[in-house]
């Protein structure tokens, strides 16, 4: 046996009142390469332990002053979290005595007379255990430290997040909500923003995934939601923009389940869109309730051109409540592993008294159900009470004024020439120019329709000289569109379609004038309108423009249309649904 067989010398404390035994053991251990100190009794061993702090201790059981078992107990106490293996040296062989050694905190025993091979093996084994314990302790401390750091960072991040994604008007009197301060790191979001024309938008969302990625994804959602809502965009437009942004930035497999609500207190209606969240509810004053089920894919899944945001409309009365939640509510588990689920929710809603807030009752029941009073981190619940008056009306005066921001008086001319007509549509560009006026953003749909109908008429009837009379049946339609395609490929240089836009702002709204002139021969409008027999398949564009605008006139030749579109602040929002 040579020293080289022992890569790791240990500091060993031995205590034995028998001089012979002590010397033999000391010799064996020293020869094995260890650093050994010896004591003659328990008390001396204890003192030596304190001054020298060895890696392991080997104790005789029966010693004067302080016996082995008591010394072991005290050494273990002194060692605290450190693992200091204590091995008893004993010539005892009855099971009871040996067990007593281990009960006193000993880790093992070595039988006398000593066998160097066994000693070496045991010390090796305990050294491995000791080092594993050290590693674990170190790693645990590191994890604890990192976790504290992470929590601190989350609190700071939350503060930062709040500055960007403030909670908007969640603090108004008729909203009650529950959201953990750190819910954003569970992927939950909860926003409310007043609309310039009164009422508000609400968004409850739940990102797939947790932690930092979810929090980062929530930032643009907040920015778009608050930015577009306060500029007066309608719910569908906000949703489309949110989806487009999330599709672009989120990795595949990550998306945001969301519930969007447009609340109008004045005209007492709700428009809602649910993409992947649990049912929301309208809790009626008479105790009945209407579920608002998910009808769409979550935000961030469908490509923008495939994403439509049909919002369902509900009439509401003062006293009705809108209840929204993320799936943390339904997924709450009891200590027995049962789910709270839809039945649990239904029971709570059945039990609710009229004057009771559904949020409070739901939270109370969930805490009872889960048996945990604190742990509601992944619950996000919101209830909004429909009131007689608009709770954010006082805040909206400034916002209403913001609808009058943007360019007030302007005009522009945009002309598409020759073969460019075949390859380029000026409509998105023109719409974009109009949407610079904040108050017009509510009107993007009718304005787009007007622009598009004007353009199609100018192109198909003016430039391409296609007669609507062809559209007299399925074959006629096919012929019409085949011919459209063909003639588009052959547009002469002299042809053009010219748009002239003019906008002026008034005290409570504005007027947009759109002129569209084409290079065609013009057409006889009277004849165009009365030409067909009964309701034909064509000729619906002009009546559509007339109904959407304040005025539509044609010049005498019939190749220039002028549309007047008046908009009022008062009808912002509602005008589209009439």
């Amino acid at each position, binding site marked *: 046996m040579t020293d080289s067989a022992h890569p790791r010398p240990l500091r060993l404390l031995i205590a034995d009142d028998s001089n012979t035994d002590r010397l033999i053991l000391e010799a064996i251990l020293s020869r094995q390469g260890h650093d050994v100190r010896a004591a003659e009794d328990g008390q001396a061993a204890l003192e030596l332990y304190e001054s020298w702090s060895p890696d392991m201790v080997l104790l005789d059981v029966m010693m004067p002053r302080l016996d082995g078992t008591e010394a072991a107990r005290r050494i273990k106490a002194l060692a605290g979290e450190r693992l200091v293996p204590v091995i008893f040296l004993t010539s005892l062989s009855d099971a009871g005595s040996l067990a007593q050694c281990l009960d006193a905190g000993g880790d093992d025993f070595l039988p006398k007379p000593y066998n160097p091979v066994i000693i070496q093996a045991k010390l090796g084994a305990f050294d491995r255990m000791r080092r594993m314990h050290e590693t674990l302790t170190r790693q645990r401390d590191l994890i604890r430290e990192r976790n504290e750091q992470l929590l601190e960072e989350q609190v700071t991040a939350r503060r930062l997040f709040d500055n960007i994604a403030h909670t908007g008007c969640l603090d108004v009197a008729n909203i009650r909500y529950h959201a953990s301060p750190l819910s954003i790191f569970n992927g939950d979001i909860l926003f409310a923003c007043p609309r310039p024309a009164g009422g508000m938008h609400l968004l409850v969302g739940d990102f797939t995934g947790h932690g930092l990625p979810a929090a980062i994804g929530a930032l643009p959602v907040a920015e778009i939601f608050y930015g577009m809502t306060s500029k007066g965009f309608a719910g569908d437009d906000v949703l489309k923009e949110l989806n487009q942004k999330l599709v672009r930035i989120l990795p595949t497999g990550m998306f945001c389940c969301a519930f969007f609500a447009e609340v109008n207190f004045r005209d007492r209606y709700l428009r809602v869109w649910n993409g992947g969240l649990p049912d929301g509810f309208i809790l009626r004053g008479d105790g009945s309730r209407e579920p608002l089920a998910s009808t769409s894919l979550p935000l961030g899944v469908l490509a923008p051109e495939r994403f439509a945001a049909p919002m369902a409309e509900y009439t509401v009365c003062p006293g009705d409540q809108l209840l929204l939640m993320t799936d943390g509510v339904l997924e709450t588990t009891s200590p027995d592993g049962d789910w709270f689920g839809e039945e649990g929710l239904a029971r709570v809603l059945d039990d609710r008294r009229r004057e009771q807030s559904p949020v409070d009752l739901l939270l109370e029941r969930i805490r009872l159900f889960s048996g945990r009073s604190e742990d509601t981190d992944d619950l996000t619940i919101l209830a909004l009470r429909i009131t007689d008056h608009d709770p954010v009306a006082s805040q909206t005066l400034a916002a209403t004024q913001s609808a009058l921001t943007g360019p007030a008086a302007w005009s522009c001319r945009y002309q598409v020439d020759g073969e460019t007509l075949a390859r380029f549509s000026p409509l998105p560009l023109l719409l974009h120019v109009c949407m610079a006026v904040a108050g017009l953003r509510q009107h993007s*749909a009718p304005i787009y*329709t007007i622009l598009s*109908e004007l353009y199609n008429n100018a192109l198909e009837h003016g430039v391409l000289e296609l007669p609507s009379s062809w559209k007299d049946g*399925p074959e006629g339609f*096919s012929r019409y569109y085949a011919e459209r395609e063909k003639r588009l490929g052959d547009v002469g240089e002299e042809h053009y379609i010219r748009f002239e836009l003019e906008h002026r702002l008034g005290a409570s709204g504005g007027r947009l004038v759109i002129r569209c002139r084409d290079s065609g021969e013009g057409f006889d409008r009277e004849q165009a309108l009365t030409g067909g027999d009964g309701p034909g*398949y064509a000729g619906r564009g002009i009546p559509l423009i007339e109904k959407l605008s304040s005025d539509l006139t044609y010049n005498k030749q019939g190749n220039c249309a002028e549309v007047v579109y008046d908009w009022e602040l008062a009808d912002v929002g509602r005008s589209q649904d009439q």
Partner: protein
Amino acid sequence: MPVNTRRSEDGETRIIAIEGRFDFSTHQAFRDAYEKDSEDVLYWVVDMSDTSYLDSSALGMLLLLRDFAGGDKASIRIENCNSDVRRILAISNFEQLFSIR
């Protein structure tokens, strides 16, 4: 495909779903969707869940479908319109010709 068709389980209803913009560019696909193999179809549903926009030429196409499906006797439901699409349909009084939900 911007226009998809499927059948109800009993085979009596044909559902035509239009994705994105419903305008002249959809004409041929829409016509195919109602003309092909439709001898046994009794009821029609035009699903607008994914329709973002509808113009006046699409109104004409809906009327073509209505005539194809039996004119005044046709049973056609137009479903899941977004508010913009619904507004165009309402302005054109299409509620009187179709069942719009």
